[in-house]
């Protein structure tokens, strides 16, 4: 159990910067998820913490101790890899015991630790199999078991679920979460799947180009994205974006764009609203409500649009609609069959409109 602090972490490959100064403060027992598009430096950051890459610059403190120059094994970290990285020639039991044997742990103690890991992960039936005789999900469990038996202070996960199929992924996600709750070990988890990030994290760290784009709880990020990048990254289907400008009419500010004129609540935009300022407006699909399928929002406007395509998901549908030049996606609860070409009325929850500066793509919500 330990808190992890990272100060101005930088990784340089040649002259290329892969990580551009990351600051993180992870309290003991927290579950932090690093998320971001491919190549944004998530793995590199994690591997620097693991001791698999040297730290070019900055400080890493684990449990208050500077760990920059410690070898991996002395950092008290255990890692679960994307490919599981099991030892193919060893049985499940030996995979679990490997690190303990190297550390010359007392055999009885090894036994005990393995038993408890096995119990937690329900690996009992596979103990004498080799990794090749296990299914993907079982391998994943063994990889976790190998991390658990070391009783580390920090768990590191690098996309541990991305090699599983959708069903298993959902299931293992729940198991990882439960396990971490039970063990209470500080955990750093890397993924590029925003759903995983949303569902698992206490704190999400969204990365972009080797830097932190935003960090916060899942709800904070979902409700208040700091930038177009974060807004589009979190949530599926993606937020709808509309180009537009701010207009002022008396005391009221309006977002005008895509043939819509949506009144704004100035208080929400502490960055200050400038009439004439070009902005990007963002609306999540669930904030565009097909008439009759959900509560009509108290503020906002109504628009009609033509449906181009419907995606039925059973309990809900996604409606792809076009209105003039503008296309958007809306979410329909308690779905009914919708014919392509049908014209429908949508209520737009204006209070939930996100605004971003058109140039910097940063949110107008808060001054930054």
């Amino acid at each position: 159990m330990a808190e992890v602090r990272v100060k101005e972490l930088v990784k340089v490959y040649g002259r290329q910067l892969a990580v551009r100064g990351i600051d993180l403060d992870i309290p003991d027992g927290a579950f932090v998820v690093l998320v971001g598009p491919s190549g944004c430096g998530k793995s590199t950051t994690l591997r620097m913490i693991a001791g698999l890459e040297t730290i070019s610059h900055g400080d890493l403190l684990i449990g208050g101790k500077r760990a920059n120059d410690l070898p991996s094994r002395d950092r008290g970290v255990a890692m679960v890899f994307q490919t599981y990285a099991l030892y193919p020639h060893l049985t499940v039991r030996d995979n679990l015991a490997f690190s303990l044997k190297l550390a010359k742990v007392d055999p009885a103690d090894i036994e005990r630790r393995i038993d408890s890991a096995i119990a937690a992960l329900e690996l009992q039936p596979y103990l004498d199999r080799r990794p090749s005789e296990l299914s993907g999900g079982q391998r994943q469990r063994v990889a976790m078991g190998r991390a658990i038996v070391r009783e580390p202070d920090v768990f590191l996960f690098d996309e541990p679920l991305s090699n599983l199929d959708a069903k298993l992924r959902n299931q293992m996600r729940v198991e990882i979460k439960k396990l971490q709750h039970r063990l209470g070990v500080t955990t750093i988890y890397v993924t590029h799947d925003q759903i995983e990030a949303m569902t698992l994290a206490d704190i999400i760290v969204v990365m972009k180009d080797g830097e932190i784009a935003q960090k916060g709880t899942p709800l904070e990020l979902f409700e208040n994205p700091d930038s177009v990048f974060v807004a589009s990254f979190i949530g599926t289907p993606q937020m709808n974006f509309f180009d537009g400008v701010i207009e002022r009419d008396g005391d009221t500010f309006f977002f005008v764009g895509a043939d819509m004129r949506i009144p704004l609540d100035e208080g929400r935009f502490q960055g200050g609203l400038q009439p004439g300022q070009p902005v990007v407006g963002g609306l999540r699909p669930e904030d565009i409500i097909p008439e009759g399928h959900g509560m009509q929002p108290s503020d906002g406007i109504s628009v009609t649009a033509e449906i181009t395509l419907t995606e039925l998901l059973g309990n809900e549908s996604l409606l792809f609609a076009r209105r003039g030049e503008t296309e958007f996606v809306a979410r329909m609860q308690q779905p009914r069959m919708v014919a392509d070409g049908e014209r429908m009325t949508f209520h737009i929850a204006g209070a939930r409109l996100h605004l971003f500066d058109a140039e910097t793509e940063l949110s107008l919500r808060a001054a930054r």
Partner: protein
Amino acid sequence: MDQMARDEELLNRIGLDRIRQNDRTRRRRRLRLGLVFMSPALALVGVFLLLPVLFNVWLSLTKWRKFKGFGEWAGVSNYERMAGNPFFSEALINTAIWVGASIVFPILLGLGLAMYFRNLRGAETFKNIIFIPRILAPTAVGVLWFYVYAPAGLLNRLLSVVSGQEVSVSWLYSDATVTPAIIATFVWQTVGLVMVLLLLGLAALPRDPIEAAHIDGASPWQIFRHITLPLLTPTLLMVTILSVLAGFTVFDLLWVMGASYPGQRSLALAVFMYFEAFQKGNWAFGSAVAVVIGIVVLGVTWIQTFLQTRVDRMTR
């Protein structure tokens, strides 16, 4: 642009030189560790393979005095001697024939066999039969075929039976037949390997493009011609190169089978070199011939790497 400027600033602030220095130290440590693992291989290869090659090049530039040893500088005179030696040019031509034949026959035959056996159920036994000669030592193969080709040997007897009259061809004794005869043996011995390699290559081909071509309306021949063959090119190239190198350096077969052929020394460069050095004691001259073989082989290898990368880029 903006990003680059910011990176520049960041690098300046944290000191790129220091980072570089650390990286260099780390690399040096890695290298030292790597050398520990590589040293046995490096030592053996260096002393027993690379050093001799250098030594050989040096020898080829000296003069050998009987019972006295090497040492007298001779410049390129050994190479000049080659130009005037009729057996050398004959050996050179024969080697070229060898190489040509060892490409064309094993590959054509091997490809045919591979395509033939590819989807044939129960073909394992046949494949093994055709492959087994490859396991045998060329020396043993040479001994066996020596008797096959003997004047009263198997081949002549078979031909006699087939043609109904006494056949007594001097397969291994006449200029016209000795090379084709040994090449036939070489093909007999090597086509199995070529076939197996091509079968492996065929098996590794993705099935899907072939099925796609099927649906796209291609006939079996069109599939072979337009899909299979182009996809097999890397394997074919590799097999070609293996055959060329084998053809260049073949020695055992020639030595054993050509033992009684009067022109033995000119059967191929490899034999010629052995003759000059070990039989006639022209050590320095022999070294020079070896260098020539080396240069040709290296040239071929270089062409291979060149083609390989191009073909890979095309088909991957």
